[in-house]
Every structure is written in C-alpha cells, then in structure tokens.
C-alpha cells in the first residue's frame, strides 16, 4: 500500500461538524435558563415594583382586588421545611437501602431489588398523591399523629395542632417516600463505584463487613452520598402534585410552618392551586409568577450550597468520589 493512498483518505470535515454540534447542544442549556429567567422576570415585574423585597419577607396573602397583599415567606418556609423533613427521613433509609444492595444482598436478589427501586423512582407523583390522600393520611393520622399529639401536644409546640391528616408532616413523609428511590439508586451506584482495592485494604486488616463499610467505603463515598441527597432535596423542593394534595393548602400568616400537624403550603403548591383563578391583568398573576421566580432561586441556592459542601468535604482530604 502506498503512503499517498493513506493520506488522501483523511477527511477532517467531521471533526468540525462534531465540534459545532456539541457546542450548540451546550449553548442550548444556557439559552433555556436565560429564557426561563427572562420570562419569569418580565411576567412578575409588577409585583416586584409594587411590593419590592416585602414580597419575599411578607406573610399576608390577599388576592381580592383593592385589598391586595402578597407575601411569599410562609410558602418559602413551607417548601424548605417539608423538603428538609423529607430529607431527614429519606437519607438514612436510602443509604440503608444502598448499603444493603451494594454490600449485603446476594447477587440473586440484588438485581431485582435494584430494578424495583428504579421503578419506584418512575412512579408519577399523582399516584403518590392519590395514595397519600386516600390511604396513607388516614392510617398515619390514626396510628402516628393522634397518639403523638395526645402524648406531646401540651408540652412541645411542634405537636400542638390537632392532627387532621392533611398537614406539613404528612406531606413531608410522602415526599420522603417519593425521593427515597432517587437517593438510594444514586447512592447504590456511588457505593458500587468504590474500588475493590479500598475494601480489600480494610478486609486485609481483619475488618468485618460493617467495619469495612465504616472505615473504607463510607469515607470514600461521602461526598458522592451528599450529592445523592442533594439530588433528592432538589426533587423534593420542586415536587408539586403530591404535596398540593397533602399539605393542607393554607394561605397567609397561618401557613407559616410552626408545627408538624399544621396546614401549610409550599411555593409549588400555591402556584398550582391558585393559577386557575389568577387574572392576568390583576396583581394576582404577577404574584404567582413571582413565587415561581423565588422557587427557581431556592433550587439554585440549594445547588450552589450542595457544590460548596461537596467541595469542602472533598478538599479537606483529597480523594474519594467527587460530586455527582
């Protein structure tokens, strides 16, 4: 074969095509976020003009024309509180599931259970919402909320309100159930990604399975597991349907979450609930869009915090699985 033949076959067109396509795809992400931000900004402009920062810090909510007042604070708090309670319930359980799947489960049941976990992540939230509304809240009220209220209601303000079933805690627990599949599926992948040689280092020293997990796997996977939890938190913050059906949908100052059994509301829920009633020419519509803008910032803030936490955890000691 002559050398000329080889040289002539080269064609560099595809390299430029590859570069341009990939760059366009990358730019698309940026374009989307800018468009969303711009649209939310322009549609909510009126409410920022009228209320200013008080829209964020206020707690009154009155859409009646002439007596209008809009404050987002109870819903921001509702979103954060329900998401954080959900996270506190879901993280230990999810890491437990991931531990079982990666460390303990025999191969034969590992695959089916992993499949079921991923299947649960794909169940639409309306299904969780319906189940929560018709089944779970009744059982939960009778078996957990009422006994807790009877026992602790007079002593601890968090248990003060008479349980009704549609409240902050019910919404949080169902949220937790909804984010468990996400967190455990990602956590499982992260635990499985810990190199065998790390485990063997601990086994070699005479460690039991638990000790191997504690001294070798967990520190190595820590930042990845935080990442998995943040992924769940992100899902919880934006979750709309199931929360709307379960949180009680209070408005105004009484929606500010001060107890587990209190009717609350979240940013996503109030938008979903009241959108139909909002006239585009009143202040009501810009107020709801403004809530959407705040929700975007809350999500953004959580992501930034997550990255900072992960960077701090990984910087302290290099190595380990970084980020998500």
């Amino acid at each position, binding site marked *: 074969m002559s050398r000329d033949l080889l040289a002539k076959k080269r064609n560099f067109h595809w390299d430029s095509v590859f570069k341009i396509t990939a760059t366009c795809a990358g730019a698309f992400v940026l374009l989307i976020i800018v468009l969303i931000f711009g649209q939310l900004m322009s549609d909510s402009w009126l409410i920022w003009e009228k209320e200013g920062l008080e829209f964020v810090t206020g707690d009154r909510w009155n859409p009646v024309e002439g007596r209008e007042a809009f404050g987002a604070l109870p819903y921001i708090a509702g979103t954060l509180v329900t998401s954080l309670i959900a996270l506190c319930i879901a993280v230990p359980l999810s890491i437990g599931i991931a531990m079982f799947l990666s460390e303990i489960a025999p191969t034969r049941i590992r695959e089916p259970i992993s499949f079921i976990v991923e299947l649960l992540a794909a169940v639409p939230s309306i299904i969780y919402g319906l189940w929560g509304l018709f089944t779970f809240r009744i059982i939960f009220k009778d078996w957990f909320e009422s006994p807790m209220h009877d026992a602790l209601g007079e002593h601890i303000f968090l248990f003060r309100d008479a349980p009704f079933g549609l409240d902050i805690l019910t919404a949080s627990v169902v949220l937790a159930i909804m984010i468990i599949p996400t967190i455990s599926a990602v956590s499982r992948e992260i635990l499985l990604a810990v190199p065998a040689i*790390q485990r*063997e280092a601990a*086994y070699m*020293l*005479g*460690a039991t399975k638990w000790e191997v997990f504690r001294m070798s796997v967990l520190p190595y996977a820590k930042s990845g597991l935080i990442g998995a939890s943040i992924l769940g938190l992100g899902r919880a913050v934006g979750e709309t349907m199931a929360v709307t059906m379960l949180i009680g949908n209070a408005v105004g100052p009484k929606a500010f979450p001060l107890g587990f059994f209190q009717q609350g509301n979240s940013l996503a829920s109030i938008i979903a609930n009241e959108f139909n009633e909002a006239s585009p020419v009143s202040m009501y519509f810009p107020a709801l869009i403004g809530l959407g803008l705040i929700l975007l910032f809350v999500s953004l803030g959580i992501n930034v915090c997550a990255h900072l936490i992960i960077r701090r955890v990984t910087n302290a*000691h*290099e190595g380990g699985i970084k980020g998500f």
Partner: protein
Amino acid sequence: MEMNALDVLNAMKKGEKSPTKTNEPEKNIPNDMASDSKYKVLIEDLAVAYNGKKAIKNINMKIPDKAVTALIGPSGCGKTTLLRTINRMHDLTKGAEVSGKIIIDGENVYDASINPILQRRKIGMVFQKPNPFPTMSIWDNVAAGLKLNGVKDKNILNEIIEDSLKMAYLWEEVKDELKKPAVALSGGQQQRLCIARALAIQPEVLLMDEPASALDPIASQKIEQTIIELKKHYTIIIVTHNMQQALRVSDRTGFMYLGDLVEYDKTEKIFKNPEKELTANYVQGRFG
C-alpha cells in the same frame, strides 16, 4: 518501651493456638529443599475455580519461614489467585471456589473452625496499587488495623506506629507530618505506608501482590530494600512480573504457567539452572 508494645500485641493474639511444627512428609519438593526444616506455610492440593473455570490446579508448595518466596509467571497464570487464597480474600470474590489445604503453623486456613476475619488479621497484604485510606492521615492509616483489633492506648499506638513506619523505611520521611493526609504522599511513599499499615498488626505472613509494579524505578528500589530487611522478621510471599526483582529479593521462586506450579526451587536454581525447559524459556525472556 519496646516490651509494652509487644505485650499488647501478644494480648491481641491471645486465644489463638501457639505455633506447632508440622511433620508432614516432604512431597513435590526438590531434594535440596527438603533439608530446610522450617516451613511457615504449607500449600496442599490447592485448586481455585472461578464460576467453574479452573484458575489454579493442584498446587503443592512449602514456603519457608523468614524468607522471601517469589511467584513468577506470565499474566493470567494464577499467581495472584494463589496469593489471595492464603488470606482467604477469595471469600469475597463471587463465584470463586477453593479446594485443598493451606496450613499455616499447623492450622488449615480453610478449616471450618477458622474465622476468615481473624485469619486475615494474621496475614498482612500489600496490593498492586497503593491503597491507603484516602480520607485518613498517615497516622490514622497505620493505626487503622490496631484500632480495629482493640488497641486504644495512644502511647502504645504511637509506639507501634513509629516501629511500623521505621520497618517500612518511611519514618524519616514522614515523622514530622504524621497528621497529613496519606494521599499527600508520593506513590512510592504511599506503598511503603501500606506496608507499614500491614506490619502494624504484626502479621505472621506478609503477602505482596506486585507491590512495585505501579512505581518508578527509584521508588521500587526502596520497596525492594524494605522487603529484604523485612524478611529478617517475616515470611514474605511476593508476586512479581519483574524477573530481575524476583532474582534480587527472593530466596525461593515458583514459576507458574496456566494454573500449574511448573517449578519451585531456590531462586538461583530457577534462574540459572532450571529443571524444566518451560521455566528456562520464561526466565530467559523467550515468552511471557
């Protein structure tokens, strides 16, 4: 000072049987080795299969005490598999089946009464790639095995850690920065840290799986020096791809091929005057 540390370690070992000599008849061992009476590890009819596929077949070997035994052979010949049977690492590999006996100080490692977790404590292992615990400091890495086995006293820990790091020839380089993360060390230092970590639990046998293969020549020279020093106190079994290394550090060499132990003899004999042609071809670099 020295006694304190040793007392604790002896206490750690309490409850384990004291070493007993075995009076097994010499078999499959060349004549010139039969005279050497002190064997630490006896491997008898050992075979390992992964999911039914044989990786090593019917291996018999007597490994002398306080000496370095090297396992050489082309990739996939089963030398790492053989090494990992000795501390029952294959218990962790799915589909691995082990048959035969490995007798250390008169006790069959694969006996039903042996707890593999306690067994591994008695056998140190150094891996191909340095694998310090990345989130731990140098001090914590060496302390890890001791803490796991119940040593809590800070003074005793400090003593054993110093001893172990000295034995691994790392002490001088790290004595002022024991609190630094282990991963801040260079690759060669990390590997010596891993040796120190293995030595800290006072193993009876030290297994090394190509301990210098991921290191540059200077770092691997240091590891070799460490190995030569360590054999005064330990029975060392080392898997290596590097025949020069086997020649430099080992007293005995076993040549493995396709799961068989083709020849096992004094290192000098294996390299200068092997019995089998296959061995001769391999050590002269004609294949592998």
